[in-house]
């Protein structure tokens, strides 16, 4: 075995260096960095968030109509305290709105019902008074009204801070209350969604690279030149590992890019909408609830899933000997990945038995088992059995792929069907 793997390191280093040097890959990498950096501001802008300006507001004048017993006082507001405000007594929307000049806004504070206040903002629809500005103005008005209302009731800042502490409200059934680990659909969906998307993305990125890189020697007719120095097993292992590393590197760069984008964008954009969206999806809560064991379980599962689909891509790659077959091979592996994902998603709703079965079926289990473990549908024992099975599948798949590669490395012709692959593995050289 040692002799068969001799040269794996050289193949790995050469392959990864060429992946990083390839023009198309460099362009792709640059695009990925750019997209990562632009992702958060793009989402913020598409979500309606506006630009935060440190210099102050674009509003040049405020007109206030207040029919309540709470004066609207902006004196403690950094943003709006310096804006000249005119208080009107007459009726709001039509009158004042018709008088608004450039960069001017009107605020109406009324109490049409006995139980509540109404704040209405009308701003001139010109550049500088965007949605975000209006929202900020509304927030400032609400804060100002709250403060004066509470002060009128004798509430000091300390009490105010306590009163303003948020609530988390949970409404659940008796069954879910007694068995909190079960039926936590939101958490299950969030974790499964995030994990499955990550595995799918990594696999889909990897597939075409592996298929292409496995075929390239045969397509370039230099297999014989290579085989005098390195054995097929080392060639295959080095190449698959190189692509896997490259894709992990891409994802690392993408993650760092998004993190940088989030931090930098936070200085200029109002990201509360995106944060809210993430919160609504339950991702924030689900992720923050993960303990070290769960994170470790996720990491092991990701590695196994990634290995499974990478080796599977290798197998489809070795069944082809020309670049014309790359598309076909890509499609087949993507279909298997998608089938595994869909089954794991749909299977989650079919109860314990189906969950347990799916946690053990190769290609489905890579998606199903870790998500079900995290949501408490299966225990660690079953997850461990699933891992063992997944590990065995990876080893068997690689052994089969290596035998086929060894047997067919000098073959060139139309792509080989399953029966041909089995025969090649049996022949082994």
């Amino acid at each position, binding site marked *: 075995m040692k002799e068969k793997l001799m040269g794996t390191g*050289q193949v790995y280093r050469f392959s990864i260096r060429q992946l990083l040097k390839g023009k198309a890959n460099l362009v792709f990498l640059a695009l990925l960095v750019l997209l990562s950096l632009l992702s958060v501001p793009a989402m913020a802008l598409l979500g309606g968030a506006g630009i935060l300006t440190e210099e102050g507001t674009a509003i040049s004048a405020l007109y206030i109509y207040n029919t309540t017993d709470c004066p609207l006082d902006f004196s403690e507001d950094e943003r709006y305290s310096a804006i000249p405000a005119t208080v009107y007594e007459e009726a709001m929307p039509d009158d004042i709105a018709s008088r608004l000049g450039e960069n001017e806004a009107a605020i109406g504070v009324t109490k049409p019902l006995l139980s509540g206040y109404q704040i209405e903002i009308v701003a001139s629809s010109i550049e500088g008074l965007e949605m975000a500005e209006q929202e900020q103005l509304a927030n400032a008005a609400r804060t100002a009204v709250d403060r004066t209302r509470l002060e009128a009731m004798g509430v000091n800042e300390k009490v105010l801070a306590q009163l303003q502490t948020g609530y988390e409200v949970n409404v659940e059934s008796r069954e879910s209350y007694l068995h909190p680990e079960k039926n936590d659909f939101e958490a299950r969906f969030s974790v499964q969604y995030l994990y499955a998307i990550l595995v799918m993305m990594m696999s889909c990125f990897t597939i075409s690279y592996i298929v292409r890189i496995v075929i390239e020697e045969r397509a370039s007719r230099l297999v014989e030149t290579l085989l005098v120095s390195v054995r097929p097993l080392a060639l295959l292992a080095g190449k698959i590992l190189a692509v896997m590393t490259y894709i992990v590197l891409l994802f690392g760069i993408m993650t760092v890019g998004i993190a940088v984008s989030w931090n930098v964008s936070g200085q200029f954009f109002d990201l509360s909408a995106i944060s809210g969206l993430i919160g609504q999806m339950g991702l924030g809560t689900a992720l923050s609830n993960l303990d070290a064991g769960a994170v470790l379980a996720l990491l092991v599962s990701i590695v196994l899933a990634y290995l499974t689909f990478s080796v599977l891509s290798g197998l489809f790659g070795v069944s082809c000997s020309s670049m014309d077959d790359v598309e076909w091979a890509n499609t087949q592996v993507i279909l298997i990945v998608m089938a595994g994902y869909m089954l794991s998603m749909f299977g989650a709703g079919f109860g314990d038995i189906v969950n347990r079965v799916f946690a053990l079926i190769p290609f489905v289990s890579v998606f199903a088992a870790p998500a079900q473990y995290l949501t408490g549908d299966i225990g660690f024992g079953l997850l461990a059995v699933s891992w063992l099975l997944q590990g065995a599948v990876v080893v068997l798949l690689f052994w089969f792929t290596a035998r086929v590669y060894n047997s067919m490395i000098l073959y060139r012709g139309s792509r080989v069907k399953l029966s041909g692959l089995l025969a090649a593995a049996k022949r082994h050289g």
Partner: protein
Amino acid sequence: MSLIVSNLTKKYGEKTVVDHLSFAMEKPGVYALLGTNGAGKTTSIRMMLGMLAKDEGEALWDGKALNPATCNVGYLAEERGLYPKYTLMDQLIYFAALRGIPAAEARKRILYWAERLEVEEYLYPDAAKPAEDEDDGENGKKTKQRGRGKKAKPKLADQLSKGNQQKIQLMIALLPDPELLILDEPLSGLDPVNTDLFKSVIQEEIDKGKYLIMSSHQMATVEEFCTDLTILHRSHAVLQGNLNEIKKSYGRVNLYLKTEQEIDGYIKALGIQVKSKKEQEYRLRVTGEAQANELLGTLIANHVTIVVFELREPSLHEIFVSHVEE
């Protein structure tokens, strides 16, 4: 050191493509593996190098199974290729690394062979002369060398002509300074200038005391270098042995004769077989030295002016054809 190949056999289903091939190289030199297309030469080489599983037999180098761990082999395959989109230098350093040659040492060897095989301009584009047009590839594309001051881009394999690619492939085979060099059709597709260049490199390797196995259809070239040979025909070895001894066994039966007068009548009278004739230039097949001398005596006696009279053993080409012809 010695190379012993014994009973190499390969079957695909019911078809035997190499049938119990055996030969040995006890001393350095060139061993020729000859045969018609599909006779099993390349399959035999692939089996010897462990690229293809053997159904029977073995190849031993110094008593051990021949493989990259036991023997420093250089191989110029018949099916030649390079990574089309990677730079030549990267590829050469990679192939050297696969043979355990450190990058710095590899660079030294690459420089030596680049100069020797006259491909420096593709490997060291910055050192090349500026503004030269170069036919750069099979597709006939022309590119222009960049002028001084600008850093030239390293060449990719698909920017080279077939002949220059072949030089790079020979470099790959020679970089590890192999003790056993296997050349499968080394001269196919080369122009006369590059053929001479390749032949001089082969001669150098022979002079260094290397073991060479050469497979080729160019009989004249093989004859120039090889000492021993095997002729394969339809998976079987039909002739094996030392080239000189094989030739001797045929005797001197080829007579090349050039005269200033017509001598057809004398030839016919002695019953000598005419293989070809162009004006007064004859290629004859005699039964032996006695018949050749008899003809010579007749010509002298009849005052025929003889320009060339050369009695030779059969050429390798003739021996080959006589063994593989139906």
